[in-house]
């Protein structure tokens, strides 16, 4: 009783003390939210780049090591060089973001620390481990060559293991804010921190971000190559950067094909965590956001197809396939139109009356995921069919595509007879069918073309310069899309710092409309590319005149010298 009385008599004093410690502080001029938004998006852009590029850099290095092809080794070194200079910028932005949280959202950060404190040390340790591994990987390129190359490749793999682990730790914080788990109704940790880490959206975001990082790294590397191509003084240089751009785009596109699979998995887990959150995301105030996303994805796929068609002009013997291009454009355009057709939109009563209901009587049927996946996935299946094949393997490959198309269309039609919760699950089967077909086609392609008669070497560097602007378009579009998806992921929490647990009581608790978000995304994307250019320029300064000495002279690539002679 005495203790209770003491507590109550102390309560006002404690409360007054608490009132002095603000929950929020205001960042000068632009406010705390915009400051955190800008720095978080920039940090994520750089982090995605330095985590994504090393993944395919080590694959390319391994290819060069096994095939003894020096150009792959050069490209891998070039890619690591790009990430190397971006490392410190990423760390600086991360530190700045941390200061913003501590200074401007102290109560929120104190709560996050009360849950995730054990992970902070792990994160710091992993960061050190990755940094030093990449140092040795980069500076030991010549030292660990020849018979010790396997050690060097292993270092590349190890740096990626550390990099991915960093991603997993950071994702646990972000996903906890979105779909908290392992805590009681008051927000206190119930058991170990693992319960909070392993929340509903953690693993889907891990997979989604890992794949997206590879796509992002690929598009940025391709854009870098395009920039160097356009400014090239010699045919050799043009050929080298044409090839680099092609590889970057190829890697980006390969990863991009599987990205929707991770997206559907994430969507399914969001619905599983909280129906209200899922429905608000897809059919509530964010519904228009997905129209923009559909357009951007359409631009990415159509742009990459256009690049591939332009690239065919440098391949002798590809003329016989060019007549299929207009038909493919038609299929792509149709697929794009279905993909961009909305189903559930936030509309006014007058608009609903004018349309005859909340869904359009005809086009509304194209808005459901069944129609979208059928259009989009079939479009991709056709894209595979443009590869140059040999007759003996074509029958099997066509059969694989036929089976995939049948599965996609079957679930596409069947999707109209089931409820939306079941329908979204069909997406997984449709994606798996197409991925299976791609794997079968590639598995046959590899032995089929081994030692095949060449119709002529690819004339690298002869591609039309406008193709390089396509690569820049892809990089800009994907970076902008990342910003948009970041807004979707964060905005879906609406007026909650931690969904359902810690409410946002700041002046910025309103989740802004898409136009405001787009303005912000554009400003940050411009800042990102300006910083990237600066960082690359710095990296170039350090390397000037040293390439030959380091044994990383740029290789002569077929095509460039052809034009020279």
């Amino acid at each position: 009783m005495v203790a209770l009385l003491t507590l109550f008599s102390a309560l006002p004093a404690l409360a007054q003390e608490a009132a002095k410690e603000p929950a929020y502080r205001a960042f000068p001029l632009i406010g705390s939210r915009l400051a955190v938004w800008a720095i978080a998006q920039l940090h994520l852009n750089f982090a995605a780049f330095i985590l994504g590029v090393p993944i395919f850099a080590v694959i390319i290095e391994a290819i060069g090591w096994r095939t003894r092809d020096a150009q792959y080794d050069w490209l891998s070194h070039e890619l690591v060089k790009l990430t190397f200079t971006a490392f410190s910028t990423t760390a600086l932005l991360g530190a700045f973001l941390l200061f913003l949280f501590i200074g401007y959202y102290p109560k929120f950060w104190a709560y996050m620390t009360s849950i995730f404190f054990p992970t902070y040390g792990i994160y710091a340790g992993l960061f050190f481990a990755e940094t030093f591994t990449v140092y040795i990987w980069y500076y030991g390129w010549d030292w660990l060559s020849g018979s010790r190359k396997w050690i060097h490749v292993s270092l590349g793999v190890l740096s990626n293991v550390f990099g991915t682990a960093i991603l997993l730790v950071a994702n646990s914080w972000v996903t906890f804010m979105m779909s908290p788990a392992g805590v009681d109704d008051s927000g206190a940790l119930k058991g170990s921190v693992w319960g909070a880490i392993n929340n509903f959206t953690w693993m889907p975001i891990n997979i989604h971000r890992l794949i997206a990082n590879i796509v992002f790294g690929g598009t940025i590397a391709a854009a870098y190559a395009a920039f160097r191509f356009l400014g090239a003084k010699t045919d050799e240089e043009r050929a080298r950067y044409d090839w680099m751009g092609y590889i970057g785009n190829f890697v980006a596109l390969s990863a991009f094909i599987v990205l929707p699979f991770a997206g559907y998995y994430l969507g399914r887990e969001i619905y599983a965590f909280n129906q209200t959150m899922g429905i608000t995301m897809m059919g509530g105030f964010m519904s228009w956001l997905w129209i923009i996303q559909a357009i951007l994805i359409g631009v990415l796929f159509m742009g990459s197809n256009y690049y591939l068609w332009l690239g065919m002009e440098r391949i002798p013997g590809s003329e016989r396939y060019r007549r299929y291009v207009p038909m493919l454009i038609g299929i792509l355009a149709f697929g794009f139109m279905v993909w961009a057709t909305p189903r559930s939109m936030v509309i006014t009563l007058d608009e609903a009356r004018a349309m005859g209901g909340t869904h359009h009587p005809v086009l509304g049927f194209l808005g459901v995921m069944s129609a979208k996946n059928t259009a989009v996935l079939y479009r991709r299946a056709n894209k595979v069919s443009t590869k140059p094949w040999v007759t003996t393997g074509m029958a099997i490959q066509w059969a694989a595509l036929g089976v995939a198309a049948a599965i996609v269309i079957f679930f596409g039609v069947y999707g109209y007879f089931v409820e939306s919760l079941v329908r979204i699950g069909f997406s997984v089967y449709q994606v798996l069918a197409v991925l299976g077909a791609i794997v079968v086609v590639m598995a046959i392609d590899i032995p089929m073309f081994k030692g095949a008669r060449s119709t002529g070497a690819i004339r690298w560097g002869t591609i039309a310069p406008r193709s390089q602007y396509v690569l820049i378009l892809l990089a800009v579009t994907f970076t902008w899309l990342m910003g948009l998806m970041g807004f979707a992921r964060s905005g879906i929490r609406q007026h909650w710092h931690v969904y359902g647990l810690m409410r946002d009581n700041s002046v910025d608790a309103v989740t802004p409309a898409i136009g405001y978000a787009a303005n912000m995304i554009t400003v940050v994307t411009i800042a990102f590319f300006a910083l990237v250019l600066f960082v690359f320029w710095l990296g170039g300064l350090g390397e000037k005149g040293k390439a030959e000495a380091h044994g990383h002279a740029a290789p002569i690539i077929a095509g460039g010298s052809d034009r020279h002679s």
Partner: protein
Amino acid sequence: MRLPVAVKVGAFALVVMGTYTYYANSIPQIQSKPPAELSLEGGNVTTAQLVKAGEEIFHTKGTCEICHRIGQKGTRAPDLAGIGARAAKTKPGMSAKAYIIESLLQPDAYIVEGYPNIMPHVDKPPIALNRSEVWALTAFLESLGGTPDVKLDDIPKTAGAAAAGGAPAEIKIPGDPKAGEAVFTGKGGCIACHKAGKIGASPVGPDLSQIAKIQTPDYIMKKILDPAGSGTVAGFPKGVMPPMFGQSLTAKEYTDLVSFLLTLK
């Protein structure tokens, strides 16, 4: 004159981003505003006002419209047209208001055939309607084909309490309500804006005549110290209540004031 590559590439990138930005600004702009706390203080609410407040909650904070339609078959949840009459016949022996209250607070207790069990508990986060709001929403739903007869006492006292970590505990503040009344009318200056029973009459702030009946001690204590951070009662201007009571009142005055407010039932 040939433009440098960097200029051409930069201009191209700006045009691409400008196009996306222009498009994003040209489509409908929808914000998601944090829901205001509805506090039906004073107990002088008419049925019509209650129904109107409930309709507002239906369209906004309750997020009911995401799944339910009125006069149109929903894809995820039943049509609510006529629910006020229909509810009385759904479960034998259960009145319309009892069925509606059960559906809001324990949605999995009865699932309408043909629909999935996806409805959230409206008094728990993230929707987290408070007791007043559940009361108003029930009245609105009763009005759809029926006659609203729900009273605040029909809503369980625990409704909305889970959001704050369980049912509110009965606590006794060691203050003097009489001295608190003096703070209310004197040093605190509360009387300038608030009514408390027979004291005060100004319509600037909400009527506090029954504040202890509809709000928790926690809320009252926090509201005095951090008025902006505790939300603004619907229909009243934001940012009017002074934020300096934590500094201007002594610990005793603060405790007395809270004790006085807790007598207003």
